[in-house]
């Protein structure tokens, strides 16, 4: 099937973007709310306790989706940053900027819910488990990325530098992941309790988890569209204010 790539880019033209998101945003918002509430209500009220983990299994419906989002949002930021570097597409880099705050929140949720889950399981809130540690490092990367955006006045300069940071940061994030695996394996023999879906989670838990994941994804889409719209307006505002300042001289 032939795809008209130029038409695809058109969707991300700022003006076009503002107009289609204006219509799409309410739809996504309603869907996100429905799926999110459905997934969590199903998970919280209508799933049995695990014979070994008891009611803590219910934390999965928060932990698994937020952890997935934490990683996928960074991947999305990497892609949109690359698009900015290659195609100088403003909406793209603003989407990356908008996503960072959501990604950081998701990482924080994954960390906190992981720690709460770990307390009854491991007997401690914090264990330097490779997974938890990697998420802590990911949170640092998110914070650094956002701090760099905040620190630079000129929006184009900020877009360029944060994109470069995102690129280099991605490489180092992956390196850190391997380094952390290596590091902890050296100290503790035997992995801690794995939370992989296929190993521990039976269908009765997996279906509501899928709904919850869909809810988180839709929530992310809704928020990232809303925040990108805000950033586009902020950019136009910035441009108008610059014009005013120049005109006053």
């Amino acid at each position: 099937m032939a795809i008209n790539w130029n038409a695809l880019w058109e969707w991300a033209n700022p003006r076009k973007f503002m107009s289609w998101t204006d219509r799409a945003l309410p739809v996504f918002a309603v869907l996100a709310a429905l799926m999110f509430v459905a997934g969590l209500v199903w998970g919280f009220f209508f799933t049995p306790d695990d014979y070994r983990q008891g009611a803590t299994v219910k934390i999965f419906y928060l932990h698994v989706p937020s952890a997935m989002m934490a990683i996928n949002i960074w991947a999305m930021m990497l892609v949109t940053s690359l698009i900015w570097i290659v195609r100088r597409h403003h909406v793209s880099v603003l989407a990356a900027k908008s996503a960072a705050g959501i990604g950081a929140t998701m990482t924080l949720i994954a960390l906190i819910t992981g720690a709460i889950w770990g307390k009854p399981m491991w007997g401690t809130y914090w264990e330097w488990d490779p997974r938890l540690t990697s998420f802590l490092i990911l949170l640092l990367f998110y914070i650094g990325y956002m701090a760099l955006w905040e620190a630079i006045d000129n929006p184009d300069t900020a877009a360029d530098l944060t994109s470069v940071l995102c690129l280099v940061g991605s490489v180092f994030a992956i390196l850190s992941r391997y380094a952390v695996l290596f590091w902890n394996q050296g100290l503790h023999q035997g992995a801690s309790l794995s939370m992989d879906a296929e190993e521990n989670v039976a269908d009765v838990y997996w279906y509501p988890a899928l709904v919850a994941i869909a809810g988180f994804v839709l929530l992310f889409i809704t928020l990232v569209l809303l925040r990108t719209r805000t950033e586009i307006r902020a950019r136009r505002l910035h441009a108008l204010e610059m014009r005013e300042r120049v005109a006053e001289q």
Partner: protein
Amino acid sequence: MSLISVKDLTVSRGGMPVLEGLNLAVSKGEILVLRGPNGAGKTTLLRTLAGLQPAYAGGVVADPETVAYAGHADGLKATLTVTENLAFWAGVYGGHDITPALAHFNLESLKSRPAGNLSAGQKRRLGLARLMVTGRPVWVLDEPTVSLDKASVAIFAEAVKTHVGAGGAAIIATHIDLGFEETVFDVTPYKARHDVVRNDFDESFDEAFR
């Protein structure tokens, strides 16, 4: 044959066009003096000519190793001596001899002094002496005579004349009369217009980003 020329150039500061529709060319032996009020965009234009900033629209045509730029800061290290500072830049630009430059800007007696102990005028002279060791034909100078006294200004003007006489050229933003046979270029009429509603501004939202 011009050493450097610009065609339909628009230069921008902080993403906003400040000067637009510029057309100029400088050939061997020419001195171009830029005039215009503060904040008009002279510095921006010079930095664009030096290749430090990308053009907003249009372009600069010049061989990549044409321009020697001197901005507001002299690029001197306070703990290095006058000779060391100059020899460093000479080395970076391909190892030209520094003695003529020292002699020309009357710096020989200060040779072994750390640059940090020089007066403002002496520093400026050292910064300008750097131009002579670059071996590049077009000097692009931003307010070169700031903090120079009358005698030093004369030394500087003499250096520019010698350079231009030897087949170089200079583009200088300055407020004072240096006594050159110069072409004056007033940037004021080229000020990018923001007071009127630009047509393209409303046509495409993209424009708001540029």
